[in-house]
């Protein structure tokens, strides 16, 4: 598949999901919807890795770059943000590691338990 063909598949799929997201009765992000639809198509064999592989690896390998304008956009919010800066920073800096720890511990614990069960049937 030509590289522009791959791009067309991905862009049209995302566009379609934006339409679907607008029809839903509750707010749901089009990007997560398109991830789910793409996963469904891959699992059912409607799409193969060769249809989207090269553009996908370009996008995922440079994923952080696409966040750059949002980070620069923080200067626009500075005025609103500076009024609540201290609680904002405390909450942002404390809760992120906390969520990481609780999530990862839960997964690790449950996986270890499952492995133990498999070893001693």
């Amino acid at each position, binding site marked *: 598949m030509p590289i522009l063909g791959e791009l067309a598949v991905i862009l049209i799929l995302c566009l379609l999901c934006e339409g679907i997201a607008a029809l839903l009765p509750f*707010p749901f992000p089009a990007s997560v919807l398109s991830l789910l639809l793409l996963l469904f198509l891959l699992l059912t064999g409607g799409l193969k890795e060769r249809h989207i592989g090269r553009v996908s690896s370009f996008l*995922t390998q440079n994923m952080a770059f*696409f966040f750059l304008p949002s980070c620069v956009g923080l200067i626009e919010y500075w005025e609103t943000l500076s009024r609540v800066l201290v609680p904002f920073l*405390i909450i942002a800096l*404390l809760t992120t*590691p906390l969520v990481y720890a609780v999530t990862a511990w*839960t*997964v690790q614990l449950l996986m270890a338990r499952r492995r133990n069960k498999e070893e001693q049937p």
Partner: protein
Amino acid sequence: MIETILSSPLFGLGLSCAAWCVGLWVQKKTGFLLCNPLVVASGLIILILTVFQIPHADYDRGGSLISMFLGPATAVLALNIYNQRRLLKTYFFPVLAGCLAGCLTSLGSILLLCRLLTVESSIAASLLPKSVTTAIAVAISDSSGGIRSITAAAVISAGLVGALFSPLFARLFRITDPVAQGVGIGASSHALGTSRALEIGPLQGAMSSVSLCVCGILTSILTLFLP
């Protein structure tokens, strides 16, 4: 001439790519944790815009073109998940339970801290969905009376913290399992953290993509039940 240059979307595009490369170079030279390309590049662009007094709107004509690709970049994470489908099937329950625990912790700890710090309710509503990806977070914040810009800033901050420090968290909290590491990153710092997880390893990347989706969906549902 200057006005023509500034009004072209190529200005924001070119500046972003160039600043990104400077960021990559700085990271390679220093190897210092905080010299992440995203941090260096956004700092550099903010500095340039401020020093030359260029309006942010001029930069954003090109910048918004880059942001537009966040959707497709999130969508193609499906391929990473697909490639790890066998493992995911085995550990489906632990992954799901981890995501649920993470979402509840996120919402609970933010509510508690907001109460402790006596933050006004509109700010609390804006901070509440900060662990999930921007699109979901802004929708949740809107529906609960939050301020969009603060939500966007909180989401980016959570993402940056995860992208910068997640390897450190793994060591600090003794998380040795790659699946657990991935799910933790996705739950605490959405797609921005996932970009780092992909660099750590394909398994971490895929699990982070899974948890970014699951947590996004769970958080949207859970916030419906909040007072």
